[in-house]
């Protein structure tokens, strides 16, 4: 059966969303970017020049991108492994593992992040335990560094990798893997040559999503990171709160937006494919 004709009904259904996003989302985005060109009056590209030449800004940018990459890598490896284990698990185990993925969603992000801070600090449970069994003499520096930031952000972003990977796995025709085995592939090569390529769109979608979201993170680096881990979001905040420099903030916001959009377009195919197919029955 071909798709039913829609006439123009779909326009009627998407119109409210278009209107709302135009007024409440595009307009704010426009106005903040506009500030980058008009504050101070006649600024033009000056703010951008400042943003790009300022060594501090470069450091913040490097922090943002480095953290996003590290977190994407960790979340992808752990997330895919976890999704695969879930896919292969028995029914009861699968329910349990899927439930665990959802648990973080239901605890305040703030509280989860702060819980790490409490566990990781010098007198926290981890250092105390290690010290009391004599493994370490002095507390390990676990907090206020990239390790803590990576841990906290990976924890938060893992579900965004696990869910699309798992969804892609459930759509794989298992007989293809069996066919590979019957044609002489070892379990390992069947996995790497058949299963992994078939589920790659899900992994790619999850990885892109993680990267994009990670570039915008603010809370986690502030609570867990040291001075060397602060992202552009913090620089923007400082520009506004401490210097009232809306022009610089606007230019930085525009640059971050461009980064997000570029990443979004790079991952566009796998993201839309994953999203548009996730609902389709195999």
């Amino acid at each position, binding site marked *: 059966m071909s798709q039913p004709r829609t006439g123009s009904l779909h326009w009627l259904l998407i119109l409210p*969303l278009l209107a709302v996003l135009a007024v409440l989302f595009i307009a704010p985005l426009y106005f903040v970017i506009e500030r980058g060109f008009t504050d101070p009056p006649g600024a033009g590209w000056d703010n951008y020049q400042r943003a790009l030449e300022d060594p501090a800004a470069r450091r913040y940018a490097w922090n943002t991108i480095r953290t996003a990459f590290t977190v994407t890598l960790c979340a992808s490896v752990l997330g895919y492994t976890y999704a695969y284990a879930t896919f292969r698990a028995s029914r009861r185990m699968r329910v349990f*593992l899927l439930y665990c993925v959802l648990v973080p969603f239901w605890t305040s992000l703030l509280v989860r992040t702060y819980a790490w801070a409490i566990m990781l600090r010098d007198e926290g449970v981890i250092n105390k335990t290690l010290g009391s069994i004599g493994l370490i003499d002095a507390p390990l520096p676990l907090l206020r560094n990239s390790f803590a930031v990576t841990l906290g952000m990976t924890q938060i972003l893992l579900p965004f990798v696990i869910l699309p990977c798992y969804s892609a796995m459930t759509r794989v025709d298992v007989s293809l893997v069996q066919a590979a085995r019957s044609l002489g592939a070892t379990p390992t090569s069947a996995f790497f040559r058949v299963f992994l390529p078939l589920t790659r769109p899900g992994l790619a979608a999850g990885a892109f999503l993680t990267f994009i979201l990670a570039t915008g993170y603010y809370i986690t680096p502030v609570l867990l990171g040291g001075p060397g881990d602060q992202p552009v979001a913090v620089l923007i905040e400082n520009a506004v709160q401490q210097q009232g420099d809306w022009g610089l903030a606007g230019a930085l916001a525009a640059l971050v937006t461009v980064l997000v959009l570029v990443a979004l377009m790079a991952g566009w195919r796998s993201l839309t494919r994953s999203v548009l197919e996730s609902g389709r029955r195999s």
Partner: protein
Amino acid sequence: MAPVAAVRRTVRALPVALVVMLLVLPSLVVVPMSFSSGQILEFPPQGFSLRWYQAIASNEVWIEAARNSLAVALAVVVLSTLIGGPAGIALGLWRWRGRSLFLGFALVPAVMPPMVLALGMYITYARFDLIGYWGLVAAHTVMALPFVVLTVMSSAQLVDPTLLTAAQSLGAPRWRVLVEIVLPLVKGGLAAGAIFAFITSWDEVVVAIYLTDPTFKTLPVVMWNQLRERVDPNVAVVATLLFAVTSLVMAYVVLKGERKQRVQ
């Protein structure tokens, strides 16, 4: 043989167990901390008491903030399902020109850095005097819409298109097909979207910091302020209460989803 197999299984299960720990640990350590009898937030907690629960129950700031958060989140749920639901249906049900472009546009607010959104909304909404309750509702609706669109779209994609053809052949005009056939069939997606929308608003900090003022604060804003100033187990109590409620809801949803899958 048996011990070797057991060792191999354990080795294989290790990474999964680690990820499970990673996922649930932060949520779990909060619970015992909330029952602490000490002055500050720490783990393991000092002693056991309900003093911080009593403190919360009689603290106007927390109660007021919870009330504000709830009021914002409920309005966000209503608005985002009313606006995002139809769009999700249009995306999932039919193929039309510009569909994937529109989908991308509808999803962008979810991936925008919150700080950029916060500043933009702050300067824009201030022009229309939209700071406080309605401003936050507007901002959170924008941020929640992608989730509603996505979940409704996924369930609309599962609707067999011949059902629509059948309904039309039986005398139903287009709008009635949507109301009588499509709407009941995407109910699950709408409900999931509503839950996501609620959580999005309920848990949002960055934008809320900018769009609230001292007379109108939401729960995350109060928590944020607390965490940066004096850290007592109040925060843990609030988090535990929220965790308990949402865990129960989630357990219900997951179990129900499993049962549904088994029926099909």
